[in-house]
């Protein structure tokens, strides 16, 4: 009991210090403007499911739309964004435009992984309505995976074409699995994924259209690819936990 007391005071002191520290910075949370209208629903309109390195700002802003009961945008409704520690929104709150939309630039924190962001608005009855949006932050290894995916894999595994990269997906007799396809890829464990990339499709009785990369990519690079594939998988990948003898 006697030990807890000083610890508590240390924590109170640290809290006080951090409060003082925060107060010194002029990054005060801008007060939300008063809403001129209210909606009944809030939906994500764009900017969700983006992937970027930790701590960086996403290329696309996150846009949400506040709707009335017939699904039309409501102008002048107040929207507030919130997220885990370290996430910054610029601006963090504001009123929807004439189309009922409100956009913010999202900067993720220093921890890699999936971030659940919440955009909320108030209904007329002062009830909070919100929508959850997921964004993904990549650490060093997963960013390397993303770069390798872009160079070696995406041409076949990503059905979307860009002006710089025409997709080969439609030309293949056996369709490759897009890396976001968690329903299929999550069933393969890391060792199986490694084997397919290392030795090619036939290693697991899959199509020979998937060539082996074991003589082109290093072990570290294949592991980085797997880490990246696991990160962007939808639904999320849940590693089966280790089994320990007690």
């Amino acid at each position, binding site marked *: 009991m006697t030990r807890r007391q000083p610890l508590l005071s240390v924590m109170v002191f640290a809290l006080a210090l951090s409060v003082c520290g925060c107060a010194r910075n002029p990054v005060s949370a801008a007060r939300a403007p008063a809403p001129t209208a209210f909606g009944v629903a809030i939906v994500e309109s764009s900017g969700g499911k983006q992937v970027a390195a930790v701590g960086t700002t996403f290329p696309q802003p996150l846009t949400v739309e506040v709707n009335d009961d017939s699904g039309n945008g409501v102008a002048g409704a107040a929207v507030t964004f919130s997220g885990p520690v370290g996430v910054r929104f610029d601006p963090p709150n504001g009123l929807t435009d004439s189309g009922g939309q409100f956009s913010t630039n999202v900067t993720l924190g220093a921890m890699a992984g999936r971030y659940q962001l919440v955009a909320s608005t108030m209904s007329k009855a002062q009830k909070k309505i919100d929508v959850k949006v997921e964004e993904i932050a990549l650490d060093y290894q997963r960013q390397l995976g993303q770069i390798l995916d872009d160079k070696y894999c995406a041409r076949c595994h990503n059905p979307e074409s860009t002006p710089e990269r025409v997709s080969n997906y439609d030309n293949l007799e056996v369709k490759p699995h897009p890396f976001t396809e968690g329903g299929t890829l999550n069933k393969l464990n890391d060792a199986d994924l490694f084997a397919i990339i290392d030795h090619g499709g036939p290693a697991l009785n899959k199509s020979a259209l998937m060539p*082996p990369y074991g003589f082109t990519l290093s072990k570290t690079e294949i592991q980085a690819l797997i880490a990246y594939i696991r990160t962007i998988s939808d639904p999320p990948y849940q590693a089966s936990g280790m089994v320990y003898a007690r």
Partner: protein
Amino acid sequence: MQSPNPRSPFSWQNLLGDPTRAFGVVSALLLVLLAIAPAKNYFSEWRHYQNGYLRLIRGRGEAVTLQRHFQPGIHQIWHPDLGITDRCTSCHVGLSEASLADVSTQPYGKHPIIPHSLEEFGCVMCHRGQGAATTVEEAHSSTLAWEQPILPARYMESGCGQCHHAGLVSTPQLNQGRELLARYGCVECHVIKLPVGATMKATQDAPSLSHVADKTSREWIYAWLKDPQAYAVSATMPNFQLKEDEIRDISAFLTANSTPLQGDTAPPSGQKIADPSAGAILYGESFCASCHAVQNAAGNLVGGNLGPELTRIGTKVKPEWLRAWIRNPRSYDLKTEMPHYRFNDQQVATLQGFLEAKTDSDLLANVRLEPATPEQIAHGKSLVMEYGCTSCHEIGGLKKPENFAPELTHIGSKPVSQLIFVAGMPHTLPAYIAGKIRQPRSFAAGLKMPQYTFTTAQIDALTTALLAHNERAQTLPPSLMVPASPASHYEPAGKAGRLMADLGCFSCHTIYGRGGDMAPDLTWEGSSVQRKWLEDFFRNPGTLRPSLIRRMPKFNLTEEEIGTLSDYIMTVYQTPEFDRDSMPDSGYPATQVEQGRQLFYSKYACQSCHIVDPNADKGYIGPTLTGVGARLTAAWVYHWLKNPQSLRAGTVEPNRNLSDDDAKALTAFLMMQKGSSKPEAKP
């Protein structure tokens, strides 16, 4: 002598009673005082976090292992040669524990996987902060005495840049920042010395202004100086935010100072041809868009960024200059990257008509300039010197200034106490650097640094690259330095060399480490292709890689020029790895060809990326192989199949580790693909 009054209220007997009691009180006091030091240690922050760590691992399956790894007390990573004394691991206890990958509560999370071990370089090397501190506040925040706060995660790649001066695959942000420093002329005014002894060099030469009056009007120079991005959104020239009279005088000086250049203008021989559809076709056929961008109706830029944007080119250049430029760009600028296309008169007239139609009447609508007075011209000259225009541009009669702007070699470790911040800005070095790039003139009146139009991501990249230029990077032990490979100054010799310079081959192709990355590396081209195919390709370049949007243009070469180039390429650009003629280009036994076909279609499934039979195969990634037997040498195909990366580093085709027999059979099958006589269809 009189003894002190025993009745005095301050005597020790009065305060503490009898001597025995006094002794006891003083001893107790001493004990308490002595206990303060160990108590401070016992209740220290790091011990609190270590206890928290023990509580955290107690509930986990692998607790026994983790407990065995745990050692109480202050931990330290010490590298005297790097000046690193890090005690961060005292609180960040589980950094190296693979099984804590799912823990997101700090300070207990596992460190993300990086190419170095944590012991190798410690923490502050990349994260900054005060490594020696043992309290949270002192380690992470900055105070007057502790200069280095923790570096925000967005600039983390600057840590890599301290040792790695060569580009790394896994640091896109750092690479982008360095590229921007070189491309946007930052290093023309600011000297950045590299620890290996060199200085950073600009990659893009701003155009010479010595003969600018031949090329454009004073009115256009005026509009350009006022707002370069109004003429071309992709312009690399920043806005110097000049006053009206300053622009008037600088444009007067540049026009007056310009000297005519022999042969850089061509009198209109015959009419220019205003045929938009023919012009667009020629513009497309010549692959101008590989280097030049044009803004489309939706406002998006379409095309490359090697050459200037052409959206409003008709408003800028004089017709007689444009005609001469299209005919031969080297008549105006010897060092230009633009190829000399050898267009005929009709083609020149068609392109001229097409480009001249790209105008914007708004640009010069309000520009009315009186003829310049000598005072204005003199004032313009002093302004040109004052703003350091000659740092980037060559201007006849003026010298490039030395050390025009502050040197940035140590910018990444500049003490915060030496910086002047703008009100409302966080008092940290990264915020200062980013703020300087975002709005340089907001820091004080009279500053000369121009206003760039960088995006947030570009500013972050530039800040990252600049943070890597610090004291530590300069004083690293040489064994840790990873220098960039020295720039190649390869220059092909003789007639062929002059021809290659004229055609601007190095703008797109790399040979012996020099050149662009838009087209394949040609260092071993002589071992790779057959001479007849090469000559045909020069005559009419067909599509080799359907998935690429940038292609080799047709240069209208004469037969003699084609002969010169082919001779040189076939003789000089040969790999020492194998002999080009060591395998026959045809005449393989049918059984071996058939075996190769089987391998191609079933075992190695090459059709996923390549097309051999245009009616059945659809692979779209690698080059089309319908005529590969008439294009490549058998020895090249064989050695490429054995190990593609050894012939062209970084190529996408995976190394399949083929057996000699499989590689030979595949070579036999591929060499039988001689293609049809009709030219390949464009996609």
